[in-house]
């Protein structure tokens, strides 16, 4: 049976400004007016408004994602500005969530940025992310990364997870119940001291822009339901070699959080060992 198109299915009419603003999206066969409406109705939350969150939010705002949540309780520092493009010199000392809101809403008045000026923990994460369709992890530490993964698995939220390190970045899209989660890849966080802290590692600013922009692309694809997401695949990018690699990641039946017999049924607050992000 062919599904009958309901001409009344579009609840909203585009304004003249919206037709012009989103014209390059509407022209795409995979998007059109129907796709743009999905984007306008989407609710996406960013974990962190730093190096990754900044460009993700920028492109989501430009695309017209109607509701963008920003979770961050840090303030803008001068050392952030080498890569965190949602902020600027005049915002030093301002909460990053407020700074990002100002940037994104100025770019596009169709966007409502909801600020969550708190540090994520097992206590508050469920309450915050439950109202969003897609979670974007751009956090800079393992405790948050695992907390976000576990919460998204438990709430069955799509999670677009990325990380950067020096000249490299990685990206994976997690669709709980359909593909592997972050713990299928790395079951437990590395012990404190095993990895260089973010203060020691260094990062080329533009690397966060590349990976954050790829992350934003995965978010938009997920909103539209088009293309092949990085489900069960880890994308690795090396800026010095200028090479991309995709590694298959199988689902782990024994995964402690998304496996057949999960042992993690409550959220864990791992010890923060890289909580400063200067």
């Amino acid at each position, binding site marked *: 049976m062919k599904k009958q198109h309901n001409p009344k299915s579009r609840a909203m009419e*585009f304004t003249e400004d919206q037709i012009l603003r989103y014209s390059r999206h509407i*022209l795409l066969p995979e998007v059109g007016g129907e796709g743009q409406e999905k984007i306008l109705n989407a609710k996406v939350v960013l974990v962190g408004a730093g190096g990754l969150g900044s460009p993700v939010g920028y492109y989501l705002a430009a695309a017209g994602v109607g509701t963008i949540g920003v979770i961050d309780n840090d303030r803008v520092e001068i050392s952030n500005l080498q890569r965190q493009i949602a902020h600027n010199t005049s915002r030093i000392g301002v909460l990053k969530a407020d700074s990002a809101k100002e940037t994104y809403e100025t770019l596009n008045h169709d966007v409502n940025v909801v600020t969550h000026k708190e540090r994520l923990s097992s206590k508050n994460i469920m309450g915050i992310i439950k109202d969003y369709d897609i979670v974007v992890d751009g956090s800079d530490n393992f405790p948050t990364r695992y907390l976000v993964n576990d919460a998204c698995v438990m709430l069955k939220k799509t999670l677009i997870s990325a990380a950067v390190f020096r000249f490299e970045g990685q990206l994976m899209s997690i669709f709980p119940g359909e593909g592997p989660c972050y713990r299928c890849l790395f079951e437990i966080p590395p012990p404190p001291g095993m990895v260089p802290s973010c203060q020691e590692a260094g990062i080329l600013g533009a690397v966060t822009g590349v990976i954050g922009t790829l992350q934003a692309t995965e978010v938009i694809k997920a909103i539209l339901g088009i293309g092949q997401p990085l489900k069960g695949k880890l994308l690795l990018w090396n800026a010095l070699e200028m090479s991309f690699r995709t590694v298959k990641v199988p689902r782990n039946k024994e995964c402690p959080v998304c496996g057949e017999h999960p042992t993690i049924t409550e959220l864990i607050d791992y010890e923060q060992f890289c909580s400063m992000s200067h």
Partner: protein
Amino acid sequence: MADEIKVDKTLDIKGQVCPYTFVRSKLAIEKMNLGETLEIITDHKAASENVPKSMENEGQKVLKIDQTGENEWHLFVRKDKEKVKK
């Protein structure tokens, strides 16, 4: 102008230029039912060629292109396809 063609909706986009001629035509046809016909009136020569081409690219059927004046065209497009999914 329509002769035997039954028009379900008319879109007057005189004064509009590319790519908004196609953007507006596409938005209009998206909201119509399969099998219905959209009549597009344009005074932009490039659009009289490009809009039918783009419509065909997206799977719609161009029934007729009528030039009704020095700078006026009526394009008749039947909706044959819903949005491309993948």
